[in-house]
């Protein structure tokens, strides 16, 4: 059975994971290994007056004062007016969020390290905390960074001609939307183990990361070491979602202590640390005015987006990627001409904002999709019709939208039709009316989005990042026994790249993936890669493996042709053999000839051999766009505010599907996280900036009962700009659920004259709105 592109094969990585044989950072054994625990800031904002170490543990505790040869993490940006922040790996001068690292303590066990951490006395002088980004945005006296004149990392504006839209509009919709701060919650938290390898004269850092090569670059920059002296290895990683896509301050302090003490040191993030210091994503606020004609055709959008980016700018993505993406992606799949948008990246006393699966788009999609439904209600039409008519039509492809996004291929309106069919939209209104007569509130909601994937260098460049992703390299080789080795500097933490990259090689080399070994994550053994994020793995690393495999296949064919006495073009590679019609020679024999019996090959043999490293970049530099429509039906219990998802369908198109089984898993998993965003997950802060959700009893992550049986449909519109027409899709399904579900809630509650504009749409939030409307007869949020 072929195991190349399109094969629904089981994953290569499953065996070790199912048998408990995977090696995560916390599983590594090493002689002399000690564990680290951090003293973290108990307050949101304050001046560090004194840190007192207990005398008996003087040598086991390190503070910023000890680490004087380390630079603060500083993410520069080329965007004008951007302000960089100094993010010290151990707090220096001030603390700026609850959970910020102040001191690192080491001991043979974690429990003992925590015992020591408890003995460190902090003398902190509290300052008033900045917790509300809308307040912090205009505050010029209370400053997160005292040497700034305000609390803005950056503000940007996109100035389209909104006056024209305003003048022509029949309908004006004005809304405010909020999305909550979230934690990404990979099941394995962050973890880092560092030691000094005397033989290699290298600092070796095992770390739970999506970007081993970038971590190497970052560590060497801020530890002021040559990159040759740093090796980073990402072992098995228990989920990432963006959380493990930045250089963490702990990665620096653990490395520094290991180097300083000459002892292997490990820190394993626990769940409390994650829920407090890792509360770093998704929090947006929108003020949005939509202008539409009388049938609901959008004439223009005027938006103001405020992102609560926390205290520091993360490396390498900066504090401003989120707002830049939000401003650029708000129009999404919709075709309209007039757009004005201001964005604010506001510093607050919260953990530094980190891009999470979907990056900015879950927020903008939520805002846009609710607005579409609001327009439809205002013009008295079905939201599905208004949505379809506003989408970029298939005939207009390729299409450059109002913010300059180049949509390569696709039929966006058709995805709405398909989703509507799957969720049985025909007949729903009758069902809904009948339910209402029985006192039951059911509703339906749709949400359509585009997912820019494998953004090219120009796109990243435009976001001003200190580090712009470019090409991707891969190495593919045939071993002397005829099996295949693939090496990629990208990394897999659940996406199944060990399988899908093998499938790319299998496609060209005709070798079953069982005989293809994929090595990733080790900067000592893999080509440079900026890593796994932005739905770039399959397009970029997959493309590189494909290209290297193609080159390798040509070389194999030359040898095979010689051995079979035919022309290379007559050779077909399949089932581990090279065929010329009915005669064949196995890859094993070809490899044997090359490595061990070159005397069987001609004198003028190509000495480049059976090992190929190739680089790859798509033929356009603006990303390729996957897209999807999600649709949900819900029932809202007006007595409790509880929303029950009844049906949930996804119709998506991500170009050529390499492994349908894995793609479906990405869609289900992404949608599950999106439903968490829509209904459950929220980091709550009190007025002092204390996070009140420091356990999993307080921060609710959806379990199997909170999630529906998803239905999934696909189309395959290939991209002409990538190898095999592949588009990235890892993030997509996390984008749409808030829009689909809250639209469905609002549809259900329409008879009560209630609209929800905030996620998560918790029972408390929905019920308090219902109660306030019942009491006052007005809807307000």
């Amino acid at each position, binding site marked *: 059975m072929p195991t190349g592109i399109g094969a629904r094969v089981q994953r290569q990585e499953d065996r070790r994971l199912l048998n408990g044989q995977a090696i995560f950072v916390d599983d590594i054994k090493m002689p002399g290994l000690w564990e680290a625990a951090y003293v973290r800031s108990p307050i949101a904002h304050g001046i560090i007056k004194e840190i007192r170490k207990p005398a008996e543990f003087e040598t086991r505790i390190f503070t910023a004062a000890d680490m004087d040869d380390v630079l603060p993490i500083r993410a520069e940006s080329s965007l004008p007016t951007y302000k960089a922040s100094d993010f010290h790996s151990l707090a220096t001068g001030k603390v700026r969020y609850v959970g910020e690292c102040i001191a690192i303590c080491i001991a043979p066990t974690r429990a003992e390290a925590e015992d020591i951490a408890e003995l460190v006395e902090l003398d902190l002088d509290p300052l008033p905390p900045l917790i509300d980004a809308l307040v912090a945005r205009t505050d010029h006296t209370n400053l997160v960074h005292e040497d700034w004149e305000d609390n803005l990392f950056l503000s940007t504006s996109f100035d389209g001609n909104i006056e024209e839209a305003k003048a022509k509009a029949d309908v004006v919709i004005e809304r405010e939307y909020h999305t909550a701060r979230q934690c990404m919650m990979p099941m394995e938290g962050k973890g880092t183990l560092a030691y000094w390898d005397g033989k290699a004269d290298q600092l070796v850092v095992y770390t739970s990361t999506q970007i081993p090569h970038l971590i190497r670059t970052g560590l060497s920059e801020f530890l002021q070491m040559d990159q040759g002296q740093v090796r980073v290895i990402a072992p098995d990683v228990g989920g990432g979602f963006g959380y493990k896509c930045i250089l963490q301050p702990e990665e620096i302090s653990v490395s520094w202590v290991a180097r300083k003490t000459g002892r292997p040191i490990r820190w394993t993030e626990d769940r409390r640390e994650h829920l407090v210091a890792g509360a770093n994503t998704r929090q947006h606020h929108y003020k949005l005015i939509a202008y539409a004609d009388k049938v609901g055709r959008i004439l223009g959008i005027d938006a103001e987006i405020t992102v609560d980016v926390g205290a520091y700018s993360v490396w390498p993505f900066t504090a401003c990627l989120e707002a830049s993406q939000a401003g650029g992606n708000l129009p999404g799949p919709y075709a309209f001409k007039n757009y004005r948008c201001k964005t604010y990246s506001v510093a607050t006393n919260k953990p530094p904002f980190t891009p999470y699966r979907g990056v900015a788009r879950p927020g903008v999609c939520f805002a846009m999709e609710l607005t579409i439904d609001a327009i439809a209600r205002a013009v008295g039409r079905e939201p599905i019709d208004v949505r379809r008519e506003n989408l970029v039509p298939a005939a207009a492809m390729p299409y450059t939208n109002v913010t300059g996004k180049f949509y390569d291929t696709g039929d966006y309106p058709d995805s709405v039709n398909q989703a509507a069919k799957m969720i049985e939209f025909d007949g729903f209104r009758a069902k809904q009316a009948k339910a209402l007569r029985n006192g039951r509130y059911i509703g339906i909601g749709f949400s359509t989005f585009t997912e820019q994937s494998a953004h090219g260098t120009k796109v990243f460049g435009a976001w001003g990042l200190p580090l712009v992703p470019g090409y991707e390299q891969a190495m593919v080789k045939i071993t002397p026994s005829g099996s295949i080795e693939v090496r990629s500097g990208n990394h897999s933490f659940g996406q199944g790249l060990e399988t899908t990259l093998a499938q790319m090689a299998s496609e060209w080399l005709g070798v079953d993936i069982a005989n293809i070994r994929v090595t990733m994550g080790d900067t000592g053994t893999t080509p440079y890669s900026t890593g796994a994020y932005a739905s770039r793995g399959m397009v970029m690393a997959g493309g590189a493996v494909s290209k290297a495999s193609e080159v390798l296949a040509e070389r194999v064919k030359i040898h095979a042709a010689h051995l079979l006495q035919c022309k290379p073009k007559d050779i077909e590679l399949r089932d581990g053999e090279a065929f010329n019609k009915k005669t064949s020679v196995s890859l094993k024999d070809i490899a044997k000839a090359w490595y061990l019996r070159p005397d069987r090959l001609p004198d003028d043999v190509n000495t480049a051999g059976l090992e190929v490293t190739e680089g790859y970049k798509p033929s356009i530099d603006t990303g390729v766009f996957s897209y999807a429509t999600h649709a949900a039906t819900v029932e809202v219990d007006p007595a409790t505010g509880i929303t029950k998802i009844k049906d949930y369908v996804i119709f998506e198109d991500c170009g050529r599907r390499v492994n349908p089984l894995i793609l479906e898993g990405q869609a*289900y998993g992404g949608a599950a996280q999106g439903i968490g965003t829509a209904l459950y997950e929220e980091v709550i802060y009190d007025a002092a900036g204390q996070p009140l959700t420091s356990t999993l009893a307080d921060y609710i992550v959806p379990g199997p009962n909170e999630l529906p049986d998803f239905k999934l449909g696909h189309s395959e519109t290939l991209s002409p700009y990538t190898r095999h027409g592949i588009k990235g899709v890892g993030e997509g399904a996390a984008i749409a659920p808030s829009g689909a579900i809250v639209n469905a809630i609002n549809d259900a509650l329409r008879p009560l004259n209630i609209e929800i504009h905030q996620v998560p749409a918790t029972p408390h939030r929905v019920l308090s709105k219902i109660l306030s409307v019942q009491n006052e007869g007005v809807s307000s949020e």
Partner: protein
Amino acid sequence: MKQEISLTVNGEDHTLIVTSRTQLAELLRNELDLTGTHLGCEQGVCGACTVLIDGKPARSCITFAGSCHGIKVETIEGFQNDDVMDRLKEAFSKHHALQCGFCTPGMLATARDIVERFTSPDTEKIRYELSGNLCRCTGYVGIVAAIADVIEQQIALGISLSAPTIDVPEQKSGFAPFEPSSTTRAKPANITLQKSGKVSANGNQTIVERGFSIDHKPEVVWQHFRDLKSLGKCVPGAVIDNVDNDRFEGHVEVRFGPIKADFRGSGTHTNNDMNKSGSVIGRGADKGGQSNLEGQLNYIIGKGETPESSKIDVEFKFEIQGMLAQFNRPELVTGLVDYILEQFVQNCNSVLSGNEIKPGQGISAFALVVAIVRAKIATWFKSN
């Protein structure tokens, strides 16, 4: 504190000397090198650490070494020659029931228990039974499908369950109206204390205002209130160590159910003899838990309803920061305030009457500090 324990893990007997506080998961991972058992939350919620203890799934993160003597544990590395587990593993791979795989060992332990207990591949039931295991990658689609698949396989193979569940009998409902008996067993009265005053919040400060009376003359009560050592004795959980004019040092113990914290700090005590009012302001840090507490107690003593009694109005403001503050707010404060106040009044009466103060029972004045700021911390696992 170390102790020796013997236990059986994956069929092998082990005798170990471990510290009592070692979690079973740590014991497996660090002492026995069985790193397939993962720690996901250490709060008993996520289920990643689930192993079979004496054949039943249990959390190895909240099972401590001290309780492990004599138990039999099966971890993901075990299950040798276990057909059910083999089928589950194959089904998990076939249905793509794992992505990052971190939750998988705990998920399989629970899955095996489900397969052993349920005779039908009812996905709703499977989802319910799986609710104690979180997966962040798969949306549970493949996991539910894999478990249903294995149950179907077992049925097809005619394998009977080792521990089948018995269906709960159908619930009876409907009754004819009747006149309830006066001998109804439950006593209705929920104890209601005399209440006056209120509990409110100002920013992050909680303010409790209360009025109460004491059966002693205002002059006597005033002497008691202006003597900090005397007053301190009456506040359950507070100890005043040093008094230097209006400055003092001391500590308060916060106790609330099993939660305990000890705040040490200093403050000032000022009094106005003219109108018999005063205030105690203190600030302290928890020596263990990295939390800070600031509080202020204002009081004014006036004439009571009889010449032999006084009326006392108190206002207690406090704010807590740090770990103890990092939980949600339940509505637990009102009842506690009254309880503590009752104790305080009793203690004041005892002191003023020259009697000994009885030690409080498992709760201190500052319990309300925790009660108001902390989460359902104790509430999640409604069991012991």
